[in-house]
């Protein structure tokens, strides 16, 4: 899917520019259930990781399932906390309090800007 898009005539002409252009913005949703110690740990871990590795090209949305329980079903959320990378596609999910930075980066498929 993705390679096909990249093979369009326009991008084929400018392969170097494609690579050097700023990476797309990363949209992250953190699902939690209320203000629990685990939620807080996850959020502070996430902020730290993003600040250290993503260089401002990210957006974090916190979704509290206690306030909007329907989303547990709609977004297929089982474990909490769950972090979902909404953009770029495809969607990626990681669970836990995000204390293992390396696995978070692997899970989100993000190359560190450092």
């Amino acid at each position, binding site marked *: 899917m993705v390679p096909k898009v990249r093979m369009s005539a326009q991008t084929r002409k400018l392969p170097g520019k494609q690579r050097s252009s700023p990476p797309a913005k990363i949209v992250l949703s953190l*699902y939690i*259930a209320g203000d629990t110690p*685990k939620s807080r*740990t*996850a959020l502070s*871990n996430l902020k730290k990781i993003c600040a250290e590795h993503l260089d401002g090209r990210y957006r974090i949305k916190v979704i509290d*399932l*206690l306030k909007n*329980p*329907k989303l*547990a*079903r709609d977004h*297929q*959320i*089982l*474990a*909490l*906390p*769950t*972090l979902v990378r909404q953009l770029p596609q495809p969607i*990626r*999910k*990681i*669970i*836990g*309090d*995000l*204390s*293992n930075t390396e*696995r*978070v980066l*692997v*899970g989100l498929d993000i190359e560190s800007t450092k």
Partner: protein
Amino acid sequence: MPRKKMPTRNRRRDANRGAKPMRLLPKAATGIQGLDEITGGGLPKGRTTLICGSAGCGKTMFAMEFLVRGAQQYDEPGVFVSFEESADDLAQNVASMGFDLKTLSRRKKLLVDHVRVVRSEIEETGSFDLEGLFIRLGLAIDSIGAKRVVLDTLEALFGGFSNAAILRAEIRRLFEWLKLRGVTAVVTGERGDGALTRHGLEEYVSDCVILLDHRVESQLTARRLRIVKYRGSIHGTDEYPFLIGANGLSVVPITSIRLDHRASSEVVSSGVPTLNKALGAGGFYRASTALISGGAGTGKSSIAGHFVAEAGGRRERSLYVALEESQSEIVRNMKSIGIELAPLLATGMLRFHVSRPTAQGLEMHLAAIHELVIEYRPQVVVIDSITSLLSMGSIAEVTSMIVRLVDFFKMNGITAVMTALIPSGEGTEMTGVNISSLVDTWLTLQNIEIKGVRSRALSVIKARGMWHSNQFHELVMSKNGVELKSDAWSRKYA
């Protein structure tokens, strides 16, 4: 602690119902044929039951029937959380049992929630819990006011997450949470090697554990069910055969049957007036069992045919279990001696259950007959013949099956006639299957050669509770049916 609320609430509920001498464990009837009998009323209400077994043993069917019957018969809406199959697949799979999930869903009696757990999509990065599942389940329960919940199957959860310690703690919490919510839950689990479950956890946190088994013996499959544990309740402990048929599951109880059926003094005609005369009371007692044994071509089925036709004349329903001939063969053969079965078939007063003995295992035969009797409610049953079942198993197994059948018929007030083929020259007393002590009436037929003429002879070996003839009666078959020529014969040859 919120958990303390539960017993109080239950006590109050019981008090409202009143008239109970002791506070018994409240139960939620499953509506599954035969299961409520062996569990003494159903699964523990407001608690969790584990259904375990290997793949293909019927766990999902069991769980689904529990919900569907709950919604249809007991006005208890249910939530089905499926970790494996999608709602559409499930609906399709259980349609074969006559369950219409779509309609039930539309009427808010049932909610199927497909929870996808895909290991490859889940990266674990530290401590987590399953609160999302709880929230989702809680919402589903609240949305239809569910009283019953099914989780099918926990294995998917174990497969989806790698941190076993967290998962075990969460599953324990899930069971407690379900109890707090006061729902009657059924959780399915995969059977482990030499243990009830693979993870050895679910059976301890469940209040009731039912094991389903699906095994192959002499190339025939048999399904069996066993209640492994049931906290706070007595229950049957045997392995019970069960069947998954067009009406869902049906379990055949073995030990719930006791020797306390009421004896009837009503007599029903055998359909052969001269035979009635030989049986002093004028026929068989209602709800008794008669055995007609004899060699090939001695007229066993013909007497059974008369019996069925007579029952039809009384406007009673008959079930003819044919294990040797097809329906059309029997109808044609009976017609040749003046017994018309076709009109009875047309009016629904007679139904055939034709099955090759080798078509299914012994217990499946038993279960199939059981299910038919419960559905069709016949007053009269004919089994033609029980000896053909001998190819199915050992004599002990066949005997045990027939014992259960006979008891079952008696419990249901059914007058039964069974035929048994006894190869000539094996003596009159030998039935092959040792059930002669079980039956109330025993007629034997044999071919006797006298001066180059083969005659059929009938004798009444026993007829409990009535005077009966001690003569050998000559049995004559004509286009008008079977007739006994009693006195003439004894005078002729005695």
